[in-house]
């Protein structure tokens, strides 16, 4: 079934992708896989080496944060919108200097 994926501006400043992409899929994983197949440059931005969702990236289905960040098994339905968004937690380490000594 067809769902729309919308990419955040904070992602599009780094990788050349449209704001909206229509893909086929019954789960968030299938939709993300379909997106990456057509836009492979997104792969490393959204998923880590083990194909897990990056720690500071969120996926919403309509107005709900997905519940399965490991497998992305949340279901999507025809007409749903899936949002790929940077988590605001992403800047915390920088401001707090969590690796400040680099030792």
């Amino acid at each position: 079934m067809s769902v729309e994926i919308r990419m955040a501006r904070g992602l599009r400043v780094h990788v050349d992708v449209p704001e909206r992409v229509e893909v086929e899929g019954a789960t968030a994983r299938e939709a993300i896989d379909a997106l990456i197949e057509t836009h492979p440059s997104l792969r490393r931005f959204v998923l880590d080496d083990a194909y897990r969702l990056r720690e500071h990236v969120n996926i919403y289905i309509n107005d709900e944060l997905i519940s399965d960040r490991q497998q992305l098994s949340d279901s999507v339905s025809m007409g749903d919108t899936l949002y790929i968004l940077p988590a605001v937690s992403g800047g915390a380490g920088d401001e707090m200097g969590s690796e400040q000594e680099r030792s």
Partner: protein
Amino acid sequence: MSEAGLLVSTRKGLLIGRSSNERAHWEWSELQRGGWIVDYSIFDPRSGKIWCSASHWQWGPRLHYSTDWGESWTEGGTPAFSDGERSVEAIWLIEPGGRDGLLYAGIMPGALFRSEDDGESWQEVTTLSDHPYSKYWEPGAAGLVFHHVSVDPDDPDRIVVGGSATGIYVSYDGGERWEARNAGIVSDHLPPEMQDTAPCVHSLFAHPLQQGRLWQQNHFGQYRSDDDGRSWIKVNDGLPGEFGFPTAIDPRDPDACYFVPHDSDQARMPYGGALAVYRTRDAGASWDRLDNGLPQTGFFQTVYRHALGQDGCDPLGLYFGSSGGELYGSVDDGDSWSLMREHLAPITAVRAWRMD
């Protein structure tokens, strides 16, 4: 006399400097890779590429290179684990190897990667990851990282690597087998029977002119080795203390080395707020305190492990950056210093090269 290029990596981007008038003047690029945490940058004289390793809190690590002084950047391959468990968090080091197209990458979490096609593809050096001592490796304050690699310019199969807190390993066959070279290093964080397993290396260089000569800043002291790390000689006499991060060698002289001692792993800043670089020219038997032009009061910043570089010119140019975004430089072997830039983001790495 020669001119030099300078790469100043910061937590908010990269600055590229190019000297003129015998290093008296510097022309600076605009901020490159702005907004990304630039972990490391280096110039590869073989390919003419400036490599830039940057990571982003949300979008992960990337490698880019430029062949036009940062006018444009091309994304290279990015090292990635293939075991379905680990994921590359940051690329702390890019080191050109001895053969054309050969590069090494020091990775967090604790691994070494190798590329044989000039950074297009990368493979984990599993012979190192699987070393029997790897079970003893433990993260330092910033994580488990291999951050120093020296490749012998005359023998690309001789490789010396070190990390936090992994200890030191040497290979003589291009990375097929690795020998731990930690005997004689005193590590307060390890019990007596484990002293030779995983010392906390802060910086490590093999000297290109004298095979076997290694210089190390360790968490618990400054060391020299004359036999590729089979034994280590502590060279603290004349230094204000044991702790510190960066090391710079003098490529003209195996007996010369530079450290920036910091006050313990508790304070992590120069003693008494007085910034100084220390230089030996007699293999660590004695040390010169070099503070001419450096702030001698109220300096409460850290000089990170990669943030001291040398340009290979004669006299030697030395450049270092601080966690407070100040860049200092010397073009007379460290005898005098000047503030080159300020108000930058925390400086993670400084690397320089001679432009022939």
